[in-house]
C-alpha cells in the first residue's frame, strides 16, 4: 500500500470514528453549581448531557439552546459520505483518476469542516440573539458565545470547546491533505 493510500485510509477511519464520539462540548459553571458544572455534548446525532437542567434554567433568561438541531438529521450521512470518499481515494490507484479522487476527497473534507465551523458559530450567535422578549429576568443582554472559549451569561460562565469527534475530523483532514500532496515531495521530506 502506498503512503498516500495509507493516509487516506487513516483519514476515512478517523472521520467514521468521529460518529461515535461527541463533536463539540459546552461547560457551564456558576457559583451555585459547586463542583458540578453542567455539560452539553453535541454528537453527530443528538445533544446530550444536562439537557434537562439547562432547559429548566434557560427559560429564566429567554435563551433557547437548541435541544434538537435540524443539521443533525443529515450530519451522520455527510460524515459517512466523506469517509466513503476518503476510502475510495485510498484505493483509487496512482493514475490521474486517482489523483483527482484524492483532491476531491481532501477538498470535500476541508470544505465540510469550514462549513461546519461556520454553522456552529451561526447557531451560537442565534442562541445569544434570538431570545424570548418576555423572559422573566431582564439582566441578560445579547451575547455571542465563541466557537472556542468562554462567554459570561448571567451567573454562568459558558465554555465552548471542541470535543474528541472534532479532533478526529481535524486529524482526518490533516491526513487527507498530506495524502493529496504529490508523492515525490512527500518522499523527499520523509
Amino acid at each position: 500500500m502506498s503512503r498516500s493510500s495509507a493516509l487516506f485510509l487513516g483519514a476515512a477511519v478517523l472521520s467514521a470514528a468521529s460518529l461515535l464520539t461527541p463533536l463539540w462540548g459546552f461547560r457551564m459553571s456558576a457559583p451555585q453549581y459547586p463542583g458540578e458544572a453542567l455539560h452539553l455534548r453535541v454528537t453527530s446525532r443528538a445533544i446530550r448531557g444536562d439537557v434537562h437542567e439547562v432547559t429548566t434554567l434557560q427559560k429564566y433568561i429567554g435563551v433557547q439552546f437548541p435541544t434538537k438541531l435540524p443539521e443533525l438529521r443529515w450530519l451522520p450521512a455527510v460524515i459517512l459520505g466523506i469517509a466513503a470518499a476518503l476510502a475510495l481515494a485510498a484505493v483509487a490507484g496512482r493514475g490521474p483518476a486517482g489523483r483527482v479522487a484524492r483532491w476531491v476527497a481532501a477538498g470535500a473534507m476541508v470544505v465540510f469542516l469550514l462549513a461546519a465551523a461556520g454553522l456552529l458559530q451561526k447557531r451560537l450567535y442565534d442562541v445569544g440573539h434570538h431570545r424570548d422578549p418576555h423572559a422573566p429576568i431582564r439582566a441578560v443582554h445579547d451575547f455571542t458565545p465563541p466557537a472556542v472559549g468562554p462567554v459570561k451569561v448571567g451567573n454562568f460562565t459558558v465554555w465552548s470547546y471542541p470535543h474528541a469527534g472534532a479532533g478526529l475530523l481535524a486529524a482526518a483532514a490533516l491526513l487527507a491533505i498530506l495524502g493529496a500532496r504529490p508523492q515525490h515531495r512527500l518522499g523527499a521530506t520523509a
Partner: protein
Amino acid sequence: MKRHYTILILVTVAATIALMRVVGCGTSRSARAVAAEKVYVAPGELDKYYAFLSGGQSGSVFVVGIPSCRLIREIPVFEPRAAYGYAVHEGDPRREELIATGGLWGDTHHPALSETHGVYDGRYLWINDLSNARLARVRLDTFEADKIVKIPNLQGAHGIAVVSPDTKYIVVNGEFEQPTDGMVTNPAPYTSVVAFVEPFTMEVKFEVRVPGNIDIADTSKDGRYSFSTVYNLEQGKDLASMIQFDRDAVAAIDIPAAEKAIAAGKGHVRNGVPILEGPENPGLLTMIAVPKNPHGVNVTPDGKYVIASGKLSPTVTIIDTKTLKIVAEPEVGLGPLHTTFDGRGNAYTSLFIDSQVVKWNIEKAIKGAPDYIVDRINVHYNIGHLQAVGGASMKPAGDYLLALNKLSKDQYLPVGPDMPEDQELIDISGEKMKMLASFPTPPEPHDAEFIAASVLSPKVKQVFEPAKDAIAAGSESVVRTGPHAVTVNMTMIRSAYTPDHFDVREGDQVTLRLTNVETVRDMIHGFALPDHDLNLALPPGATRTITVDAGKPGVYWYYCTNFCSALHLEMRGRMIVQPKDSTIAIPDWKAAQNVKGPVAGVPSTGAGQ
C-alpha cells in the same frame, strides 16, 4: 538622673512582662486560639465526622458535624414535622405507622449504627421510643425514617444496642416492669423482657424475661452475649423500695443459647412473640451482682470486659466477658453513668454528680495500681451520656469525645426559664483532656454515635430515583375517579406547578400525587395549601401522595414553601373549589394533550376549563 529614669523604665517593663506570665494572660489566650482552631471548619470545608444525637422528647435525631459542632440536619422520627412534610398528613405511610404503634410523639434515647465486622458501615441507624415501646430505623442513604415497629410485651423501650459484630439483632430493653402474666387483676410479680429484633425486617424474633427494670444495653464483640443493667430487683413500686438492696445486676443473655431454646420451641408465645423464661432455660440468663441501681453498661473495644457504671455507687464494675466474673470495682467519682473508650486502653466515665469526665486506665485499675486515674475535666453541668468517636465500636478513633450534659445553667444567653441542653466537645488525643467547644440543642439529646464522613458521605443520595408512581413531565392530569373523588397528578419544577390550576367541587376528596421532577441536588419544592392544614416538602425526584377534603367553595393558592428560584414567589397555582350546586362542567384534563409551554417538558398549562 537620666540614667535613673532609663533604669526605672526597664524595670517597669520587665515587671509587667513577669506579672503577665504569672497571671497567665498570654498563655490562656493561646489556649483559646488552639481550641478554636481545632473546631474551626471554614465555610466550604466539611466536617470529619457525622454525629447522630438522639433528640429525646423532640422525638427526632440531630445530625451534627464534628469537630465544628454545626447542626446539619434534624431527622424527624416519632413526631410529625411540617417543614420536612414528614408524617404530617392523613394517609402518609409514616403517619399511619406512628398512629398504629402508639401516637405522634416519641422519646428517643439511644442511636445505634449498623455494624459490619464491628465497625460502622453507614447503612442504618436504629433509635428507640421509650414512651411507646417502639423501635425505628433510619436509612442513612436518605436520612429518612423508613420503618417503625411496636415492641410487644414491654413498656419503656430504653436501652438498645446492635448485636456486634455484624448487626445480627437489635437488642431492646424493657425498663418499666409489668405484671408477668399481663393481668392487672392478679398480683403477679412485675418483670420485664429484653427483645431481640431482626434488624432488616424489624420483626421481634424472641424475648427473654428478666426480673427488675432493664436499663442500658450493650453486646459482646463476638455476638455471644447481650448485657443489660438491671435495677430494682426488689420489684418495688415506689422510690424507697427500689433502692433497698445493696446490689442489683448486669443481666448477661447467652444469644446462641436463646436461639437454640427458641428453635426447640421453648418460648411461651404472647402477642405473637415467643418469650423465654430464665429458670426453664439454664445457662440462658446470668445475673451478675453489681452495686445497686447501676446505669450504663459498655463493652471495651477489644471485647474483653464489660463495664457497668455505679450511678449511686462511686465505682465502675469491670466484668470479664468470657467468665462473666467481676475482675475489679474501682472508684472513679460521684455518680458514674456511662463509659466510653479511646482504643488506647483508657476508659472515660461520665460523673453526673461531680459534673466531670474522668479518664482512667483499664488494665491499671484491674491490677489495682494506685495511679489508674489519668485525668479529670469539668463539664457543664450534670453530664449524662458521653461518647468518644467510635467508642462503642471495635475501632475507636481516640480523637474527640462528646459530653452530653443535662443542665446548661449559665452557659448560654438566658432564653427564659426553659434553657437549652448543653453538649461539649473534648479533645482526647493527648494524655490530658482539653475542652474545645460547646453547642446547645433543643431538648434533649441523651446519647450519640459518630461515623466518619469518609464512610458515610459517599453513600448519601442527594436526588431520588423516580418512584414507580412518579408523575413524568408531560403526563400530568386531573381525573375524576368517582362522584366525589378527583385525582390530580402534578409535577413541580422551577418555577411552576403543572397544572397551575384545577377545578374541583365542594365535597370532593382530592388526591394529590405530586412529583418533583428536578434532577439537581438541593432543589426542594414545597406544596402548601392554605386552609387545608397541608404542607409537603419534596426533595428532587420525590413523589408524595395525599388526600384532602376540597373544603369550602373558594380559590386556594397552593404555593412553594421551600425557597427555590428567582420565581419562587410566583411558583403557585389555584385549587378552585366550585359550590356543590355549581352547573359548571369540569372535564378531565391531560397535559399531554394540552401542552402550550415554550419549553419541552415544562408545559405552562391550566386545567379544568
